[in-house]
């Protein structure tokens, strides 16, 4: 096979995987202590939350949507859960109420997109602001950081615990990745997600329940957000609702797009998200070990995102169909 054909066969996922492996090998050789088992576990642990959020985002993006409200839903639903426990609500009930809130909010997002046909980017942007505003005005009325009370009990193991020497956040992320993989590969709704993302009108004509499936996609991303929030909060014994103002949501989009999931829907799978997450994990871990300044870290990260988006538009070029349907 000629080099030219080999290059032509490179998908974005393969390019990113190649970069990841190259970085990994370079860091292993050049950085002291990078390759140690404990550092690898720390590396994975630190991107587990991002990976889980990425899996939720994947499902929505595959259906030609985007969920910008994930971080707001994550912060407010979990902060409310913690506050309820602090006020004496039994742990199980508080967890159920927090999860219920996350589901209800993402259901509204989904309904706005599917039934009111508001573009996903606007609907979820507005919902994110609404969730944060509502939460800060009516649910979490004290400080914007809610501290974990001692009565949080076993649930604090979600972020702090270990199973067979492996941190639980990693195990949860791997399990969720497997579940999402099974869902997309073998379930009817998973297939429908691809079909809707690929060509919504055609999907509707063939009898796929387009609108309910879209609502379900958003509710799944709400679920991922709640799980990611529980890990975040229990790992640092507090939930800082200020992360809603941070650029975390862009990091989530970064790992999804980086791995090769197409923002125009219908193309991508769990593997893409894993590859994108690993690249960010290796990169950030290596840069932290090298003690590179935070601002420069951001520059490097955003340059890689730009590179990924450019290669996405070269490898998945705009054709007539995308032109007609428009991007999100």
């Amino acid at each position, binding site marked *: 096979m000629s080099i030219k054909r080999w290059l032509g066969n490179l998908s974005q996922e393969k390019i990113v995987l190649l970069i990841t492996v190259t970085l990994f090998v370079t860091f292993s050789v050049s950085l002291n202590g990078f390759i140690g088992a404990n550092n690898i576990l720390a590396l994975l*642990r630190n991107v587990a939350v991002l990976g889980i959020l990425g899996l939720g985002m994947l499902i929505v993006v595959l259906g030609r949507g985007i969920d910008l409200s994930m971080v707001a839903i994550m912060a407010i639903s979990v902060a409310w859960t913690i506050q309820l426990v602090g006020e004496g609500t039994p742990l199980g009930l508080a967890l159920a109420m927090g999860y219920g809130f996350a589901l209800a909010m993402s259901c509204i997002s989904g309904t706005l997109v599917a039934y009111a046909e508001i573009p996903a980017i606007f609907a979820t942007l507005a919902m994110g602001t609404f969730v944060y505003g509502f939460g800060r005005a009516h649910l979490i009325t004290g400080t914007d*950081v809610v501290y974990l009370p001692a009565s949080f009990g076993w649930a604090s193991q979600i972020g702090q615990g270990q199973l067979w020497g492996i941190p639980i956040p990693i195990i949860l992320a791997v399990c969720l990745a497997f579940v999402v993989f099974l869902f997309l590969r073998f379930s009817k709704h998973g297939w429908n997600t691809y079909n809707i993302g690929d060509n919504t009108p055609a999907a509707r004509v063939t009898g796929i329940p387009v609108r309910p499936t879209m609502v379900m996609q958003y509710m799944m991303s709400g679920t991922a957000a709640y799980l990611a929030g529980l890990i975040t909060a229990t790992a640092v014994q507090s939930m800082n609702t200020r992360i809603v103002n941070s650029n975390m949501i862009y990091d989530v989009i970064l790992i999804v797009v980086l791995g090769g999931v197409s923002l125009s829907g219908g193309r991508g799978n769990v593997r893409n998200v894993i590859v994108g997450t690993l690249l960010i994990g290796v990169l950030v871990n290596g840069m932290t070990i090298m003690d590179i300044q*935070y601002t420069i870290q951001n520059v490097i990260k955003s340059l890689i995102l730009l590179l990924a988006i450019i290669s996405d538009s070269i490898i998945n070029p705009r054709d007539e169909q995308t032109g007609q349907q428009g991007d999100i």
Partner: protein
Amino acid sequence: MEWKVLKHSMKLATLAIGFSGALYAQETNDPFRGPALDALEGKWVAYLPISAGFDLAQAWGGVVKEEAERYGMKFTIQDPNWSTDAMAQGMTSLIAEGPDVIVTQNPDTQSLARLMVQANRAGIAVVQMNMQGAVQTDAFVGPDYIAMGRQLANMAIEKCGGETDTSHKVSIVQGVITGGVSYFQVQGIMEVLSERDDIEIVSSQAADWDASKARAITETVLQQHPDLCAILDMWDGQAIGTGAAVKQAGLADTVSVITSGGGAASTCDLIRDDTFDVVVNYDAPGMGRDAWTAIMIAMQNGGGGKMKTQVFSPTYVMSKDNVESASCWDPEQYAARLR
């Protein structure tokens, strides 16, 4: 005889009247109280922190509001929710509305500098909390962060210096690099530590005031340097992540987590459970009192930048030894006052 009794009783009565008159004169004729109260009465204090949702701003505002209302002043609060833009807009509209005092908190040194000068020119007194801007106004209220940085550095030297039996390795977790609180503390730390050959700074990273980022950074640093001696973190709300990483690595006994903060109850709990070893406490309700003092000084001296004062708030070092006697205030109490 009767005349004598009458004379005596008249004398007594005169004496009594004179005595009470003297008392009365002393009370009403305090020449200083009246003007002071007049200078405060009916004035308007506008409070514009970077966010009304965090413990420090709640404590400052709660104290100032209670005192302002005690003296018949109007108190209003705006919450820009961490948005510098919203804050600048709020400041601009305040200047147009013309309160007597603006109590604000700079998000960085430059954003509000020109607006604060404008406010001063319009005769509005400006009190800057915690983060000093590029201009001096009626008062800056906050701890001396450069001195605090030096203090943190000296604590690190005490724990990890050349004469101690440690690795002499220290790591620094910064906040938002451009924010005054982090910037000046780091400046103070570097002034001291750069002159010491015995201390090795193995990492100095910014965590953006985010506990999760601080946790991730510290976890990685601890993998590289499990023999680390101390970590200096610029704020307790962020250091909760740093401390969690140290605790979960099982190194709470050997790695000292040294930080600073406003001394809320949550901080005390974190000292008790070994997440923090030492916290330089700048007592946020105490800063609220300093802000109120600055307002009184400004109002009684004409306001609007006529007198300019740096009010450095007192701090004290808090550790397990004295945490039980510390104030450990509950932010919710102050937040409730502001609602």
